[in-house]
């Protein structure tokens, strides 16, 4: 399954990137293809392109703040969780997808 994700926390210097790394790792274990965009203090990095989003079955928002340019994700199934969820039990997020 192709998945896109966005991570963002208020400070945007550590948890944003840790969560992105966790999601990438766990997604691989589940056999998913994932691309994670970080919206940290540096601004948007590893930005999801239009075709990334169009091809994805799901978008995961692991965020504690508002997602920037959210309108890009119109028409995609979005699952939004607190950022802590992606750090503590990311497996939960992915098992939600399969059901």
């Amino acid at each position, binding site marked *: 399954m192709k998945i896109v994700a966005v991570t963002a926390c208020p400070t*945007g210097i550590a948890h944003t990137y840790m969560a992105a790394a966790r999601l990438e790792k766990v997604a691989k274990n589940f056999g998913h293809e994932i691309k994670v965009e970080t919206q940290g*203090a540096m601004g948007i990095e590893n930005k999801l392109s239009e075709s990334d989003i169009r091809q994805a079955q799901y978008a995961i928002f692991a965020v504690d703040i508002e997602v920037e340019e959210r309108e890009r994700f119109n028409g995609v199934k979005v699952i939004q969780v607190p950022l802590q969820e992606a750090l503590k039990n990311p497996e939960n997020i992915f098992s939600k997808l399969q059901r």
Partner: protein
Amino acid sequence: MLESLQKLRQHLLTGVSHAIPFIACGGILIAAAIAFAPMTASGPDFSNAPRLKLILDIGTAALTLMLPVLAGYISYSIAGKPGLLPGFLGGFLSGEVRAGFLGAILAGLVAGCVVEALKKVPVSKYLRPIMPILVIPILAGSLVGVLMIKVIGAPIALFMDHANRALMSMSTGNGIALALLLGAMIAFDMGGPVNKAAFFFGSAMISQGNYQIMGACAAAICTPPLGMGLATLVRKKLWTLEEREAGLAAIAMGMIGITEGAIPFAAADPIRVIPSIMAGSAVAAMIAMVGGVGDHAPHGGPIVLPVVDHRAAYVLAIVAGTLVTAILIVSLKLRSNGIAAEKQKEHA
């Protein structure tokens, strides 16, 4: 080349779209306060109207925030979150050194490019977390700060000084040439150093008993927002919804003599808008000068009509200047739209 120009325009528009509410809110509040205060020979009088003064102060605060917001979001559009601090800082300083909205645009562009370059500097992963919240803001902020205060600010002060002397020496010569120059100066940067140089000269001449210079300035002050507002009304299709709303606010501000109402248009499309409003204001100033209009208050626009000599000529000057600006900007926009459509045809 074309692509980078479009990118540039996109960054400017991001800044403008965030700045419009500040201009509209600040401008309208100031306009309302001035409209209800008695107009005297020393300008609107707030000494007996504490409530109007309060409204004026709030409006002034909103309008003061416009420059930081404009520069901040231009920079944000280029460089994302780390661009905000140097952009806001540069925009604020642009107000402090009286560099106006052109200074703010420059500050925003420079801030954004500097931050974007700093983001690409390779650093060890232990330093990486402090880059966006410490290193980049301090470096880029200091750089933009030095640029605004030392490189931009000092020459502006010098320019104001020289401009005043040059205008003074012209005041005994050809009145029409002086009026054309003053009108163009008023419109050029709408509240920036060139505008202020002309305005201060006009108000300084009032105290010397020469009311005609300020009369020419007063007519020129209101035609940029009035002309742009009129243009959005007569050719609705040329403008976005946001611009049409800014157009209505601009008309209200124009009536009260607040040139800043045209800034949203000029910042979004300087190449076409600034010449159009300069021509309109120059025509208005010239007609006012020829018609012998004198203005006893250091303020402009239709609102000062009670303290103006030769009122019919004053109204004529404003109407003519407004029409010139509106006709010029509409035809320039139509022409460039036509060229764009042709290019598209070629591509297809």
